[in-house]
Every structure is written in C-alpha cells, then in structure tokens.
C-alpha cells in the first residue's frame, strides 16, 4: 500500500479555533470519577492529550479504560470531575456536540451502520461535519434520486486510498471481517476532520500487515502539518503503544497508577506490579514477555 498524503484530506473544519493556544491540551480530563452504584469504576483520574500527539492509555481488563472513553466521548456522565476540549469545558455537552467540536472515536467492537457501504460511512461523517444542513434538507432535494455528485468525493476517495479501502468502497459493511471493519471506523472518524480521535483497541483483529499499515497511517495523520490530529489510544498491544505514543497513562482498578514517556512506563514498578502481580518477576524473561509481547492482559 502506498498511503496517500493526508494533506489532501485536510480542509479547515468548522467550529475549530484558529491556531493552537500554546500549552492548552486538545483534550483533558480533570479528576474524573465514575460510580456504578457502590462500585467506583474511576477515581479522580486526570489525563491530558497534547496537540498533534499520540497518547496511550493502557491497563489490565477492568481497569476502567472503556469507562474513561465513555466519559471523554460523552456517552457516560462522570459522577464528578470535568472534561475539556481545547480548553472548553464540555462535561455537560452531548456526544454529538463534542463530535461537532472535533472529538471522534472508534469502538472496541466496531459500531458500523449495517445498511451503508464503506464509502457511505465516510461520506456521512464528512457531511455531518462540513455540510450539516444536508441532514435535514437533502430529503427534499429530488436530485438525491439520481445519485450523488458530492463535492466531498476527492477527500473521501483520498481517505479510502489512505486506509486501503478503495476496493471495498461500495461493499456493504455487513460483509466485512473484523479487521476491515476497524479500518472503516478509523476512516469514519478521520472523515470528520477531528482534532482528537479516541481509538479503542484499533489494532486488535488486524493481521500484521494491516496493523503496520494502520500504525503508519496514525503517524502520518498526526504529523500532517496542515491539520494536526491527536490520538488517544487504548490498546492491549503494549509493544505497539510503547512504540507509537509520546505519553502513556496507566490505569488499574479505576485509578491512574502511572503516566509518562514510554521509557518511564516501561520501568515503572507500579505498572509492572499491575500487569504481573504484586510479586516482582522472578526472571527477566517474564518481564520482557509483558512489555514486548502482544497482549499483556
């Protein structure tokens, strides 16, 4: 695959402040707690995502990663704490409002729209962000009967090419295997030109080649000078997270137990204990397995 340059898919998105405010994280959670009845799923968790960065969020099963994603994307209301997007408090904002302000996400199990083709997913996401009125006015436009001559074709096609989805562009997503479904979700998220994308285990289910391709796409999207996207990634492939991320947050039992650079996380005793148990590892081989292997859970 020869990924298309992301420059071709980067117009100015509506609702976005012009230029970055120095020092303001693109996404931040401050002392977020979530309780389900008597269970405390998250306890005073604070994280930040800097502009144009890839940030990892790791932790064993049950650590609260998915809950935190729910809070960040607006699908879950926190019991306490605040969430901000480019410095603007969005704690009370609905998921759709956050999406319009530049937050996109993918799901641990791909949530696709079964009646649509791959291309229609991207077209819809693009129009929701850039031609929102069409959601309400298009049904009265008789031209819809005779097919679309959408101006977004170029951008959507470039994204399809970037993700190597061109060949299945007109296939119904109901027929796609898990790995391709993940790519469609990533494409849908990118089509809205967001400032930050929450990626929930984007590499799981992908074979080695697809995983490498997608990793490369992430790097290129983040490095795009015209439109900088940040990625917050939950991933069980710890090796990939360590390789990709500039900052990593580690959750365990709903609490933030570590944060820092990959090197810092790799050597953090609390992280090792969370993954390997309280007892220090007997052999070096065991340690390496956890942090160089593919699934630390």
């Amino acid at each position, binding site marked *: *695959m020869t990924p298309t340059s992301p420059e071709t898919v980067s117009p100015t998105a509506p609702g976005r402040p012009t230029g970055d405010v120095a020092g303001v994280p693109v996404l931040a959670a401050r002392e977020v707690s*979530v309780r389900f009845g008597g269970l405390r799923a998250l306890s005073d968790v604070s994280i930040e995502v800097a502009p144009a960065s890839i940030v990892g969020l790791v932790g064993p*099963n*049950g650590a*609260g990663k*998915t809950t935190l994603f729910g809070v960040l*994307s607006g*699908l879950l209301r926190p019991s306490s704490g605040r969430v901000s997007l480019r410095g603007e408090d969005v704690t009370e904002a*609905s*998921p*759709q409002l956050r*999406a319009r302000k530049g937050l*996109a*996400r993918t*799901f*641990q*199990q*791909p*949530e*696709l*729209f*079964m*009646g*649509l*083709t791959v291309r*229609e997913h991207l077209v*819809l*996401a693009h*129009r*929701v962000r850039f*031609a929102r009125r*069409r*959601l*309400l006015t*298009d*049904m009265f436009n008789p031209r*819809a*009967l005779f097919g679309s001559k959408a101006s977004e074709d170029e951008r959507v096609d470039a994204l399809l090419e970037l*993700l190597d*989805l061109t*060949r*299945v562009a*007109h*296939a*119904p*997503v*109901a*027929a*796609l*295997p*898990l*790995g*391709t*479904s993940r*790519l469609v979700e990533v494409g*849908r998220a990118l089509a*809205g030109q967001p400032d930050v994308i929450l990626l929930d285990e984007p590499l799981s289910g992908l*074979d080695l*080649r*697809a995983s490498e391709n997608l990793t490369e796409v992430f790097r290129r999207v983040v490095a795009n000078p015209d439109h900088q996207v940040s990625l917050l990634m939950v991933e069980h492939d710890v090796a990939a997270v360590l390789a990709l991320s500039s900052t990593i947050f580690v959750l365990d039992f709903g609490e933030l137990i570590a944060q820092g650079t990959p090197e810092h996380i790799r050597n953090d005793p609390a992280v090792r204990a969370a993954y390997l148990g309280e007892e220090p590892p007997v052999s070096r081989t065991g340690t390496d397995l956890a942090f160089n292997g593919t699934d630390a859970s």
Partner: protein
Amino acid sequence: MLQYVIAGLALGGIYAIASAGLVITYVSSGILNFAFGALAYFVARFYYFLHTQHGWGILPSAVVAIGLCAPAIGIVLYGILFRFMRLSSPLIKVVATVGLLVAVPSLATLIFGNQAIQAAPGLAPEPVRVFHVIGVPVTLDQVIVYCCVVATVIIGAAVLRYTDVGLKVRAMVDSPAMTGLSGTNPGAVSVGVWAVSIFFAGLAGVLAAPTIGLDPINFTILVAAAFAAVIAAKLRSLPIAVSVGLLMGIVTSLIQRYLPSDSNWTTEIVDAIPFMVIAVVLLYNLVRRGSFGDAERVGGPLDRAIVPQGESRLAGSTASALDAGSIGLLGRYAGPALLMVVATVLPLIVQGFWVGLFAQAFAYGIIFLSWTLVVGEGGMLWLCQITFAGVGALTASQLAVNHGWPVLAAIVVGGLVALPMGLIVGFLSIRLGDLYVALVTLTFGLLMENLVFTQNIFVNQGLGVNMNRPTFAGSDLAFTYLSLAAFAVVALFIVNLRRSTTGLALNAVRWSEPAAKTTGISVVQMKVLVAGLAALVAGIGGGFLAAAQTSAQPGNFATFAGIVWLAVLVTVGVRSNVAALVAGIAFVMMPSLAQAYLPTWTANIPPVLFGLGAIGVAKFPDGTLAQQGQAFRRFLQSRIDRRPAPLAVAMAGDGPTGTIPTGPSTPPAPPSPRVTQDVSP
C-alpha cells in the same frame, strides 16, 4: 369514603395481578408482553366455555382454565416462539407479542364460537354473596380478588426470596448467560416463568371478566392500564408495580365519588386515568432525569457481550443489508414497477363495489407508508399512527364539509395538524428509550380515542361527519386513481429520503446510536424528524381514507384497530413501499373476498394469519413477504445480470486484512460479535 376505597381495591387488585405478571415476564425474559390482555381474555373465555357453556363447576373450571390451560399456553409460547428470541432486540419481541395480541382473540372465537355474551361469571357462585364490612357492602368476587392479591404478594415474595427456584429466577434476571455458566438451565427457568406469567394473565382475566365483560378490547385496555403500574415500576420493581396498581384502583374509585355521575366527561376521565398516570410518570422522569437510564437493559455485561451487533433489529437485519447491497437496479425496481402496473390495471378490470374498495386500499397504503417511515427508517415502534390518521380524517372532514375548504387542501391541512402532534409525542418519548416509545404512543392513542375522538362534533350522534371528494375525482374510479397517485408521490418521497443524507443519517441512528452520536448526529433530532413526517403522512392517508369512505367516523380510528393494521404491514414488510401497497390491498380485499365467497366463520381467519405473520417478524425482520420478494429479486438478478457484485470484485484481490467472507448468498458471521468485549465497568 371507605366504600370507595374498598371498591377501588378490587379494580386495583386486578391491575396489581396483571402488572405482576407483566413485570415478572419482562425482568426474566426482556419481553414486554403486549398480548397479556389477549391471553387473559383467552383464558377467561375458556373458563366461560367450561363453566357456563358446558356446565362444569367453578372449581374444576378454574383449575383447568387457570391452573392448567394458562401455564400450558405459557410453556407452548416459550417453546415455539420466545425461546428463539432471547437475543432479539426489545422491539422485535414487542412486535411478536403484538402479533399474538391480534391473533389470539380471533383464535378464541374460532375455537369457542362467537356467541354474544351478556354477563361473565367470576370465581364466586351465582348469585354472588354480599358481605358488609364496617357497613360497606363487599361482594364475594371482590373478596376473592383481595385474597388473590394478598396470596400473590406473600407467595411471590416468599418463593423469590427463600426458595432455590426463586434464587435461580433472580440470577436469571441479573444475567441469563452467567446463570447458564453456573450450571442452571436458563431455558428451564424461563419455561417456569412463562407458565407463571400466563397463569397471572388467566387469573386476572377470570377475576376481571364480571366487571369488564368478555370483550377482548376491554381486556387489552385493562392491561394497557396495568402498563401504568409497570412504567411507574420502571418495568422491573414488583413491589412498586403491585402498589401502584392498587393505588390506581383506589384513586379511580375516589375520583368517581367527586365527579358528577351523569356526565359523559366522568366516564371519559375515569377511563383515561391510567393513561394520565403514565403521562405524569413519564414527564416526571423526563424532567428529573432526562431518561429512564438503563431500565431497558436486560441481563448483565456478558449477556450484552454475546449479542451480535444488528443481527435482529426491527426493520432490518445483517442479511437484508447484504441483500440490498447485492441487488442491481433492475432487481430493485422491476418488482415495484410491475406491482404499480398491476395496481393501475386492476381497478379497470373490476367493477362497482370493488372499485371503491381499491380507493380505500390505496388510502390504507398511504397510512401504512407512515409506518414504513417511522418503523422502517426510524427503527421505532409507534402504535398510534391510526390516531394520526384519525386526526387527519376528522380535521379534513370538518374543514371540507363544515367550512367549505377544497377537499385536497383540507386533506393536506389534516396532515399538517397531525404533524406537530407527532413531533411533540416524539420529542417527549424518544429519549426515554424504544420500549417507552411504544408504550407512550399506545397511551397517546388511547387518550385521544377516549378524550378527543368521543366529542360530539366528530361523533355526530354516531353518524360521523360526511367527507366530500374533489369535484374532478368524484367517481370511485377517478378517486381510486387519485389515491394511487398520492401513494406514488409519498412513496417517491420515501425513496428519495432513503438515498439522501437524511436517509444515511437515519440508517446510522437505526443501526448504532452510540456511533451515530459520536459521529455528530443527533439521534433525538433525526428520530423526531421522521416521527413528524410519519404523522404527516398518516394524517394525509387518513384524509384520503375518509374521502374514499365518504365519511369520517371516529370509531374507525380506534387504537387497537391500528395495531391490527400494524400487524398486516409487518407481515408483508415494513421497510418496503411496495409492501405498504400490498398490505393496503390485502387488508381491504381479504375480508371482503372472504365475506363474498367463503362461509361466515372464515372472517376470523385473516386476523389470525396477520397476527401469525407479525409473530414471524422474529425470524424475518423485514417481513415475511418482503423476504420472499428478496429471494425472487436475487433470482431475477442472477438470471439477467451475471456480473459479480461489488463485494465480490473487492474480494478478488488481497484484502487489507486477509480473507473476506463469501458473498451475500451466504451471510457471514456478524462482523462484531462482542465476545471479546471488555466487561469491566
């Protein structure tokens, strides 16, 4: 005062038993049984059959009808229907029970006969003894109701709390999947729950029969009233459901004390009390919390994890999505075009009375298109489309006849009056969740039927209001073609909507609300929009129906008649415009053909067939006939066009992730079985 409280406890007791049965079924199986009233009627009718028609004693009749027949019905229903629906969406389950609601009363008539029943006996011997408790007269029937409520509460609580069976049932409520993994057979527990649930239905039916008579509609209204208690209990809390049921009975009785007994308004208000309770509870929750939270969720994280995405949604399935993607233009439009030609030619072939029936059939087709919009595109189950049709018909007739408006303008304005009603009901109910939309729309329909459609300006001493036809389409044949043209216009609008950005967004909302939201689509906005459009279409269809029948009769727009309409459409196909046309023709022509050419007793067969067809939605979410149509289109397509489908082209090369499953003829496993879902909180 005490007299009214005691009398109210009898009615409240019946509400309480019915709501207990509804809650038990819902918490243990996720099925809100809309057929509870119909099943109660069936058992009560069987009891009458044994006791009155065949002279059996009270005890043997009660034992056989309530103790044996009712649980057996529950077991059979679970065995042949509900056990296959464990992973279906809540709305699919509701539609299946709506099918039962339509089929069971007609089935009872076929089995037990259709003789007129003046008075139904209860469990007390005739003549019913009357006791005096602190000066208040209490009948033995009422005493039996009190005893049954007390027994239900005490025995139910004891069984659930202290027995092994109760423990298993409570475990099932929390998680059927985990219960199964723990060594308990969830199927065996479910069989027991269904047997108990229908036992409650039968008990409530026999206890209620002396009060409300043996009329299936009254039974369903009674259970619709019990829904008030179930909603107050957020579908789950047995003690709250029983308490609210009892309270409603007392309040109803007390209100009767203070209202004039000779006023029509008194009857209307008393009938509407349960539905007002529903409205108050819903509004309270809406204002206080914005939603009912996760009340609709059944089972635990593991149960949700093993539900494949979109396999069994209302108005769509993964297989049908694949099918739609594989059919070319010819395969897609040849069938509808052919049917339109047939529909155009048929009125020319038939004569007289039958031509007028086609005008009605096409008007029904327009009304059915409103469900095509709201169910097929919106993915919601609305049970009051007939009410919007009634609003359209009554408004149009008032404007055209009493105010001299041009007929077509009156019909359009009738639709425009229904439009804001759809928007408001949608806005109030949609954020509460899918099940509540069904309940709220049912309630709205019954409220309108009781409070608005009963006004004399519409009823006109039982004669209804005459409705004109446009002067250029005064004859049956001309108006038939005008109706068909109106149907075509609405159908083309829906086709256009599907292919537009609006349609893409509605599709997104229908298949994954979380993903739609995080893509920036307002789920409530899109659903309210389609609900309003559907109300508009139903209103216009109602106007055409009134013009076809040359009168607007409020009685023709009863809520439960609308449920039969829905069953007809669901049987044929709820996502297809053509299916709406076929459903309209079938609904009008089948009874008339049966009446003209078949023995009288066969009149009850079409409702049974339509009911069974609606039950079939569990297997074919697109509708049984639509499923056959898809198979035919695939065959046609394969004969005419042997080019590979786009997916097949895509599969020819190396996909980015390796092997891609085979084509649409072999639907693949769903792309996202949630077996690996993180079940952490």
